């Protein structure tokens, strides 16, 4: 249904193949000290128009372009290559499309790296391609821990967050704050199931109890969650934990408020929330809700500075996925600069174990064992409207979860790096 990207996509492919034909030379990556095809090609593969287009989408591409500009400005004539190109494709949140697009990017567009890729199932498809083609893949907006678990590989990195981080932050904090009894609703597909498992585990470890787990069909065609919500008060939970994302989350919270579950003693806790979701619902609809955030634009001056630049380019405030895209691009380009080549194996060597501190990664480190990028995460609370001072000023950071506590420890990882 979403074909309007076909024309730009076809033209990009056409131009790229034309350039490749004229430029001649450029063999496959290999041999140190050189840049393959005389250019670095960054592929951004994400949802350009669908339900996840707002949280990364076209503005995610802009964030990558911002990083390229800043990299060029930083290194000037010393840059390892001045010829850095960004190519874009829409995967429509479908794994099979992600699979072909990734192939196309690596083979025909000569992409040295693929970035972003929301939707867990699509991200896993791209990871498989990265492994086969021996080209880099840094996932930013996908959630599944499988990327650094059973499906990990030498060329895949996972940057901003994952389901373990969300569950560990929110599930633990909310349970310890006194909400012992949970009623979980989750969308019935890879992401939701993964979230439900991670949350249940975190809740039980923290001494809480999951009274009921209710799957809802995905995608929810009628936009209705009232049946699941109406059943909640019967089991007397302290809190309703929802694992829905994007538009589904918005629907569910609207209905949660209409059925006045809060007045019936059922609090609300949200598994994954982007700032764009709060913007849709209005902060009053979510006031007091606690959730785990990978990054918040108004956290401190450093974040704010970047958010201001982002706003100049896009007109809106960045989600953590936007910031993550910038940071990951910079980390990759810095690694190419340090290696002096874009040959995958050399770049991977440079990334592994690297400690990074920028506006996005605080106490950041790229774990060599499973390629999980760890960094400080935040337990956030949605402000009531009366405290919101400007657009997108919706969050209050309750605590910072230190990098080594925020993510799954290496000892628990199932990753076997081949």
């Amino acid at each position: 249904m979403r074909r309007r990207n076909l024309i730009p996509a076809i033209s990009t492919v056409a131009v790229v193949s034309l350039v490749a034909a004229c430029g001649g030379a450029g063999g496959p990556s290999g041999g140190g000290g050189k840049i393959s095809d005389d250019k670095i090609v960054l592929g951004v593969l994400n949802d350009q128009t669908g339900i996840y287009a707002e949280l990364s989408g076209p503005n995610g591409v802009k964030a990558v372009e911002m990083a390229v500009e800043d990299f060029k400005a930083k290194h000037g004539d010393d840059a390892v290559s001045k010829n850095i190109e960004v190519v874009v494709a829409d995967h429509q949140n479908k794994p099979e499309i992600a699979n072909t697009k990734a192939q196309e990017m690596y083979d025909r567009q000569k992409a040295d790296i693929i970035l972003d890729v929301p939707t867990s199932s699509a991200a896993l498809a791209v990871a498989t391609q990265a492994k086969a083609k021996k080209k880099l893949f840094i996932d930013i907006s996908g959630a599944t821990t499988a990327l650094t678990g059973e499906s990990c590989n030498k060329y895949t990195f996972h940057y901003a967050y994952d389901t373990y981080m969300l569950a560990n932050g929110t599930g633990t904090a909310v349970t310890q704050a006194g909400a012992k009894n949970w009623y979980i609703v989750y969308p019935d597909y890879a992401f939701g199931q993964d979230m439900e498992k991670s949350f249940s585990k975190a809740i039980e470890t923290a001494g809480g109890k999951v009274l009921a787990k209710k799957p809802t069909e995905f995608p929810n065609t009628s936009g209705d969650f009232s049946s699941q919500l109406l059943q909640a008060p019967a089991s007397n939970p302290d809190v309703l934990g929802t694992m829905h994302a994007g538009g589904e989350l918005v629907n569910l919270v609207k209905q949660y408020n209409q059925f006045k579950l809060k007045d019936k003693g059922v609090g609300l806790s949200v598994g994954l929330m982007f700032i764009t979701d709060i913007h849709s619902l209005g902060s009053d609809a979510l006031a007091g809700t606690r959730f785990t955030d990978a990054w918040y634009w108004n956290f401190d001056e450093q974040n704010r500075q970047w958010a201001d630049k982002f706003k100049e380019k896009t007109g809106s405030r960045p989600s953590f996925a936007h910031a993550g895209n910038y940071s990951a691009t910079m980390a990759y380009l810095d690694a190419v600069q340090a290696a002096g080549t874009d040959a995958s194996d050399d770049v991977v060597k440079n990334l592994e174990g690297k400690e990074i501190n920028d506006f996005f990664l605080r106490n950041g480190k790229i774990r060599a064992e499973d390629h999980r990028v760890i960094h400080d995460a935040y337990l956030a609370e949605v402000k009531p409207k009366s405290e919101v001072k400007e657009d997108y000023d919706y969050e209050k950071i309750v605590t910072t979860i230190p990098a080594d506590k925020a993510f799954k420890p290496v000892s628990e990882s199932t990753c076997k790096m081949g």
Partner: protein
Amino acid sequence: MLQHAFNGLVNGSFYALLALGLAVIFGMLGVVNFAHAAFYMLGAFGAFILLSEFGVSFWVALLVMPLLLGLFGMALERLLIRRLVALDPLYNFLLTFGLTLIFQDLLRMKYGVQPQQYPQPSGLGGSVDLGLFTFPAYQVFVLVFSVLVSLGAWLLLARTRIGMIVRASTERPDITRALGIDVGRWISPVFGFGIALAALSGVLAAPMRAVSPLMGADLIILVFAVVVIGGLGSIFGSVAAGFIIGMLQALGNVYLPGLATTLVFILMAVVLLWRPAGLFGREEASV
């Protein structure tokens, strides 16, 4: 149990209003209007735009949007749909499908896919005590309102002269024409009326659903199933099927989670096998 059934009726009201419009249009024009759910979306989005840009309240939007979109629908029928009616029904199906994409993308270009805010209308924020259980006032209002609208539409079609003409032209256009009635005159208003119903349910949905350009896209398939179950073109059937399916889905969600929507299509398959013309449809003797 009662509470869930009641809840299902509320969801059924949307199906009923949408299916009613779709059935009227199909009956009169023989057009399968794929853009129906897009008008539902436009109704909700229109209410949002009226509120955010002009401060127009929900109650006014409830009146204005159906009128505006109804008129727009009439113009659409005059300009585009009419030209294709004589051809294979597939042409209009494609036309309305194309229109759906255009509406969706125009709004997407301006507003993005992120759902927009729409508050509860003033005065309906509370709950109503229904004896056995309390229910949000707004949901109760939606149910009562759509039952009234459905009843009104039925009275209009069953008890007035206009309704008689419309019904006659729906069922036997040739004979009606032979009786000296200008059938063509009524086509545009009927199309507009169907669209107005879709817009109305859109406005009703704005305070309880996520208002986004894609909000109708998933719904249309379900509404088609409702119309088929009710009997294509059957006015009473589509309304009844709307409420029945709303209830079925709600109960399915409680007792057979994961199967709720599939249940609708299973019902559709069974109905088609058992009564090919739909639950309330009449079989055509000869076509």
